[in-house]
């Protein structure tokens, strides 16, 4: 199970990097979304994927799942949703204002000329 998860995380990261290297702003945002999903899965996997009962130290539970990684990804997911939504709104506004979503045309020259 851990190996499968590792492969999935790797695929997520590669797709994220591929998307973030493209010029279109929307693709970049989707890339950041995938990146944070990969990171969240990584936390879950790092906590250990034991098959067992609910994370309560009962008297008879031999295996229990570590609850901390779940708490951590819950926080991280909320944060990444917030950032992604902010990013989307910003991209829309920037598209309206600058008239482009191509990162090549957003290159700054202030202070250099």
């Amino acid at each position, binding site marked *: 199970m851990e190996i499968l998860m590792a492969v999935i995380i790797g695929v997520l990261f590669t797709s994220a990097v591929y998307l973030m290297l493209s010029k279109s702003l929307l693709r970049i945002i989707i890339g950041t979304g995938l990146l*944070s999903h990969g990171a969240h899965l*990584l*936390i879950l996997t790092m906590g250990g994927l034991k098959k067992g009962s609910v994370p309560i130290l009962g008297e008879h539970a031999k295996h229990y799942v570590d609850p901390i990684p779940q708490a951590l990804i819950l926080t991280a997911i909320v944060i990444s949703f917030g950032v992604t939504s902010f990013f989307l709104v910003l991209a829309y506004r920037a598209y309206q204002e600058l008239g482009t979503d191509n990162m090549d045309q957003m290159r700054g020259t202030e202070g250099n000329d």
Partner: protein
Amino acid sequence: MINLLILPIIIPLFTAILLIFLTKYIVLQRWISGLSMIGTISASIILIQTVHTDGIQTLNLGSWPAPFGITLVSDMLSALLVATSSIIAFCCLIYSFRSIGEGREKFYYYSVFQFLLVGINGAFTTGDIFNLFVFFEVMLMSSYVLMVIGGTKIQLRESIKYILVNVISSALFVITVAYLYSVIGSLNMADISRKITEINQPGIVTVIAILFLIVFGLKGAIFPLYFWLPGSYYAPPAPIMALFGALLTKVGVYSILRTYTLFFYHDTGYTHQILMVLAILTILAGIIGAIAYEDIKKIIIYNIIIAVGIITFGISVMTEESLTGSVFYLIHDMLLKAAMFLLIGIIIAITGTSRLSNISGMIKRYPLLGWMFFLASLSLAGIPPFSGFVGKLLLVKSGFAAGHYIGAAVVLMSSLFVLYSVMKIFINGFWGVPKEFPNEGKVPVYMLLAPAGLLIAIGITYGIGAEFVHSYISQAAEVLKNPALYIDAVLKE
């Protein structure tokens, strides 16, 4: 007062929430945010005194004992930094009253400002590595808003890049924390430190140390990772720029300082060597930028990078003297860099340009501004008896004593170049034939000079009263050098 150390986080938080409902009433917003800031400053100063007399303060949230729950820890370093950043935020706030403009004030500027302070003070205070991430995010989220508020073209364009860089570094931060958790099995910083000592820092922990260096280096702008900073910090208006330049990068530097002295101090040969090389390269890169540009904003922005290099050099030497120097220089730089940004904000407001070639002869009409800029420049460059001198002296001395001659020489040299770069602004901008400035008379110069003057006055007192300050700073450095003090205070053993 057992809850004292949470006050610098809670007061801005509640103020921020309150201000969301009051966006239409600008004057009321100003009063509330100013008063709450005074409250925050007083709480943080009381906190410094408490830490000074009673030792490290801890607070277990929800009364869960230390390694299990979330702990807030205030040692001398974090108390000092909380106080410094609150004071700087207060000055930037007063500065914004007269300069930020009604449009921004109506769109949650003061509220977001307070949230930024929550993030910064929280990051300095927390004793839990995941909570550090959360406070980083609070801080970053508010900094995104502050960077884009107003919505000019350059702001929109630069904040996209800023957000992208920070999203990637945040993902990396989460990944690093996950690795650390899988190896160590704990999130409490004191507990992590103790467990790393037990397993004697194997190779995997060194890998994690380097990952942390990348993460915090991105936020703190060390050598190869500072690329986003000159562009992003260029965009927002002066008080926001002052906040960012003085506080945001320093949070990254503080995190390097904390993790490298608390977690990864067993095998310093590899990690601290890399940190030292990067610190020296950071100073050099900053120098090149600072003397190359003809734009006053860019010159000061590159001065941030030099300062980050100098502070991280002190961390990499890892003797008690060098850590004292680092802490001393860190606080000095926060104060003076903020003052510098506020001053050049006034210059830009008067002249309407940041190109040095379009400015000259300002001292004829604004003598006070000129002399304050001169004082700040001298202090920034580390001319005795100003505050930059003491920190730099400690750093150079400890560098030579530990046999790191190149690094110490570069730190010494950097003063010269910092002096050159800021004097370039002074000579070209303030001397010469006075020009006609477009906004002359429209800018409330004296109102804007007051907060900058306050910061410079604090900075100079800090330098001249170095003897008095030193007892506090050395207490901070003592904890950094002996992590056992920190661990014992948190885990109550």
